């Protein structure tokens, strides 16, 4: 998928994360601020990269402010932001690119 416009998903509440995506410069530009950076920074990065790969996104600026969200939450917020950025609100590929 190609990012069309900037989009945001998620909140800054505890146990949530806020994901912002923008069109990229030809690669994945990943930034992360997390309250659990030391323990889960690498894990969060891995989940985000996997999610982007599933959605076939390879050209994006993605920045995440994490407040201790679990992997499932992070994944859902990344998916939310990406689909918002391409304006797709219906006919989401449940079980396809959006893997459980």
């Amino acid at each position, binding site marked *: 998928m190609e990012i069309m416009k900037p989009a945001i998903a998620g909140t800054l509440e*505890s*146990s949530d994360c806020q994901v912002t995506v923008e069109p990229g410069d030809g690669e994945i530009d990943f930034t992360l601020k997390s*309250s*659990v*950076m*030391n*323990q*889960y*920074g*690498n*894990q969060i*990065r891995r989940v985000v990269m996997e999610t982007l790969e599933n959605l076939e996104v390879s050209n994006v600026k993605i920045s995440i402010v994490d*407040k*201790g*969200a*679990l*992997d499932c939450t992070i994944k859902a917020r990344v998916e939310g932001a990406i689909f918002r950025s391409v304006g797709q609100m219906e006919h989401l590929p449940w079980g396809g690119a959006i893997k459980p």
Partner: protein
Amino acid sequence: MINAVGREIPEDILEMTGKEVFHGNNYFDGHVFQKAGAYTKCVINSHGSKVIGSIHEALVKCGIKDGMTLGFHHHFRDGDYIVNMVMEEVHKMGIKDITICASSLGKAHDPLVEYIEDGTITNIQSSGVRGKIGEAISNGKLKGLAIMRSHGGRVRAIETGEVHLDISFIGAPTCDDYGNCRGIGGKSNCGVLSYSMVDGDYADHVVAITDCLVPFPNFPAHISMTKVDYVVVVDEIGDPEKIATGAAKPTTDMRKLMMADYCTQFVVNTPYFKDGFSYQTGVGGASIASTISLSKIMKERGIRMRFGIGGLTKPMCDLLINDQVDALLDTQDFDLAAVESVKDLRHFRISAGQYASPFNKGAVVNKLDFVILATLEVDVNFNCNVVVGSDGVITGAQGGHPDTAAGAKCTIVITPLLQGRTPAVCTEVTTVTTPGESIDVVITDYGIAINPIRQDLIECMKDVDLPFKTIEELRDIAYSIAGKPQKVQFGDRVVGIIEGRDGTIMDVVRQIKPFEFSE
């Protein structure tokens, strides 16, 4: 050298501090030592008043100079003005290389960071630190070592002479012109002055700072005039709203209530729950809720508590009002109900030494049946961490945690299994503050683990309907939800030590380094 809780203590730290590694709770039982003493400047004349004009004048009269150790207490908690007022003056005078020896430091003391950075303060000894001071220490800004010691440990360090207090400052809610201090009355009523008593006995110079000068004699004095050199009157010694808050509303958080209920069920099924038992809790929501639910069962079964110790809050003082306890022994008051209760004749003020010091002829923690505590982390060896956050930054205080845990017959730690995403039950705590041998039971929202060294407790819970699990099972549940946490990336420099209550080294705290992704 590896200590009794499996922590590697660097040789250079042992050399620098002259300390031993932690050998186990009772290593110093029967130890003999001679107490240190304070210089005393006699007052024989009858000119009548010790009141002087300012903190500056007090510092000059006490002979303030580079390298001195200054003592402070933390009964005013986040409302304290004393430490900042004194240190601002010390800073103005250009004094350097001060060691602060406080019973605790908190967010109220963020302004000290400036003095840490410019070398006014080079050593900090405290129960713990929070806020910006913690960040400064963890980032290596303090020139010397931070020493985190328990409330009992501070008294031990002073009485043995390991620390010598040059000048101690006592924030006194009321004081007369001859130095009789009381924790009661005035604008900054904190109830008791327990942590300062050792300062009164062992500091060379003692300065009482008050915002409420009362006529002589301010009796019964909590700190006697016989120990006070000077009295300074200022406009405000603290912010009353942050000293003693209104009683916290009993929690309505179902998770905390469930853990409180587990705790109460556990307590009543132990052999220690019988007429005349003794009890202490921390001030967390679940601990307070368990006091409330325990009081109901006490009433139903006609069981009285002989004594309660605190760190006191309203639910403990309610036991006194409702005649369910014979006596409260008090070192600190957390809310207005507790401050008010100090007037009750069955509510006794005790010193921090009486409360918790391992180096006297017996402290009251040794007579405790139950203590209910919280923790930031507990590991599969039951070691607890209450000082260093899971991000590696110093952010808490030992308080009486290691003292009461060591003393009580049944030490219960309550914690939600996950604090946000961070597993509270883990393979290895970031830093050990309280050794696993002191911890008997861990209660979480996902189950209860009894320390295998307490086969007697495991035996008496055999037929009790509670969700018992092993500590490893609890950890595995936590990791299955949150993922397995990676270890904090520390630098090499040791910035602080966690001192065992007996003065040995329980663990070291290293400087943090910025996180880097591994690939």
